């Protein structure tokens, strides 16, 4: 047999390729089904759980109205006003019907999530859309940066596990990882923001500026974003570093690593193709898990740094029992988390050939 014909015989057949594509497609389809189901479940839980919180929003609204007008009403008039409010917000109907209406409007009415109680007649959807870029900008960027830095650093200190520097890095990362994110944020605000005055530590951009496409505004925006993102990154990044280090060390003990060394491969090839590639798979899954777990941390950061994101919106709405707004915030954050998780999950088969079959 000539070299030429034997190499042609070795090409994967058309059928094999097609079967492979079908597997990937089916995996994606299944994964998308899970995504839709989770989204629905989250909306449902949010709908009922906020209605269990004590305190009637209509009473709070009436209280606000009374304070604004500075005069008391008799009980009858108050009843009438509350009944009117209930009708506007569709809360005079029984709970199951409210739920069905809510879902119907959300799905068929082009994401109509009802008006905000507080800023009536503003749509909660619009409130959320206005706030979302802040949250996504800070949250997504800082988690991704933390993941990239943490994965690289973790791989390195795992690879050099016996060196002294690597052991020191583990101690530092452990300390950073167990620190609550709000403490890190407060520390940064107090020292970097106020004591040393290196970077601004409050608000989305300098007070005297207006949002516009000028260098002055953009640079102000960026410098204001540094500290909130840094607080998020320090804590999450330390976690990613430790996770990746542990993964590397366990991969380094695998038989295929010994075999790779026996083959006389260069340390760089072993690190890149054998150790890092394999440790990366669970690390990508960790990204998906962490994304969900750290979103609430970002909400705290927004409040501490006075950023007009979903976190601050949620805290305001909570005080007024503004169900519609709270639900919308939850819905959108879950949507964001699920979408990121979906992207990560769809990326996994690219890294791990074994998942294409078993999932």
């Amino acid at each position, binding site marked *: 047999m000539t070299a030429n014909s034997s190499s042609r015989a070795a090409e994967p057949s058309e059928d*094999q390729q097609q079967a492979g594509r079908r597997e990937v497609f089916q995996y994606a389809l299944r994964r998308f089904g899970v995504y839709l189901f989770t989204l629905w479940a989250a909306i449902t839980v949010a709908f009922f759980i906020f209605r269990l919180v004590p305190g009637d929003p209509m009473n709070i609204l009436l209280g606000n109205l009374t304070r604004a007008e500075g005069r008391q009403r008799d009980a009858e008039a108050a009843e009438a006003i509350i009944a009117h409010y209930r009708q506007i917000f569709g809360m005079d109907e029984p709970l199951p019907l409210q739920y069905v209406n809510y879902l119907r409007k959300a799905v068929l009415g082009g994401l109509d999530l009802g008006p905000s109680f507080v800023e009536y007649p503003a749509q909660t959807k619009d409130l959320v859309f206005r706030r979302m870029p802040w949250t996504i900008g800070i949250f997504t960027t800082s988690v991704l940066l933390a993941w990239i830095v943490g994965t690289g650093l973790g791989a390195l200190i795992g690879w050099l596990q016996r060196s002294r520097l690597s052991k020191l890095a583990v101690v530092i990362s452990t300390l950073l990882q167990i620190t609550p994110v709000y403490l890190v944020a407060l520390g940064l605000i107090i020292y970097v923001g106020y004591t040393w005055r290196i970077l601004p530590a409050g608000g989305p951009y300098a007070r005297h500026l207006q949002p516009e496409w000028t260098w002055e505004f953009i640079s102000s925006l960026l410098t204001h974003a540094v500290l909130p993102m840094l607080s998020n990154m320090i804590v999450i990044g330390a976690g990613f570093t430790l996770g990746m280090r542990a993964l590397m060390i366990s991969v380094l003990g695998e*038989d295929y690593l*010994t*075999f790779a060394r*026996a083959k006389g491969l*260069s340390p760089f090839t072993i690190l890149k193709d054998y150790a890092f*590639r*394999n440790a990366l798979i669970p690390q990508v899954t960790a990204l998906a898990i962490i994304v969900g777990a750290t979103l609430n941390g970002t909400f705290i950061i927004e409040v501490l740094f006075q950023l007009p994101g979903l976190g601050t919106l949620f805290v305001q709405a909570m005080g007024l029992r503004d169900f519609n707004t709270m639900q919308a915030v939850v819905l959108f954050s879950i949507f964001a988390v699920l979408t990121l998780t979906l992207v990560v999950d769809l990326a996994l088969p690219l890294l791990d050939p074994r998942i294409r079959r078993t999932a």
Partner: protein
Amino acid sequence: MPALLEIRGLSAGLQGRRSVTQVVSNVDLDVRSGEILGVVGESGCGKSTLATAIMRLLVPPQVLQSGSMTLRLNKGSSYDLVKLSESELRELRWRHLSYIPQGSMNSLNPVLRVERQMTDTLIQHGLSDKEARSRAIAALELVNLEPKILYSYPHELSGGMRQRVIIAAAVSMRPALIVADELTTALDVVTQRQILQELIGIRDELGATIILITHDMGVVAQIADRVAVMYAGKIAELGTVNGIFETPLHPYSQGLIGSIPRESGQRVEGLLGEAPSPWNYPTGCRFHPRCPKVFAHCRAQTPALQVQASDRWAACHLYDAEVAADA
């Protein structure tokens, strides 16, 4: 003719907090060019440590303590494996010295296709992509695998196929010496027999020398030319397969051979007791607590591996004329 690999006084152990626990003690062994040398012994007797030490693949806490391993290649070049640096070893590995690891089931990287895993090292050793690929295909043919295996991921292959891929990878550069550690342990007897036949074929075709580490006397009987019997980190007896199976000299070899079932109806004679762990190797002859022929001298003095007959070495006081006469 000088040995292909000459091991002298090789000791390896486990580095503890303060001291080193010796696992392999003072091993002398000549591996002759073109032979299949079986190294047999119970679990924990140091066979695998010896194999890893020959490959210089020991990782902490395992340490190579002392000794020399001279590898003589046909071109007249010779290396002391113990003294080589990592980068010199990289050059030597796979080209002249290759390894079939224990636990072959997990020795392939799950995320890379077989092709990449077979060719990456060939390319690193200076072959072009195309050469590497045709070498890989040729090596697969040696173990009766089709070229299309190259496009598979390890999880798509059966245990026997994975083992064959590893053997193919190990022989793809036509190395002078192959160290195979528990080659067939996880395989059923049919696959085991096929793979052993392929291994003999490889030896005949490539003229490779093979060190076969195993606990299975049956495997040794099937394919080895010579056997080294290891006990508690030392070589107890060394000789041809026929010689040792017919007239084992060392009481431990006698026990091992006696424990192989032969004819129906005959009771199998086992060895009493169990092998000591490196943390409590007995003094004197390490086999003395289990030895049916033990005498006073065995507890005090360590027997040396000595020539007993032509092509036969044993480390036992029974054959030491002066000592045996005292007893």
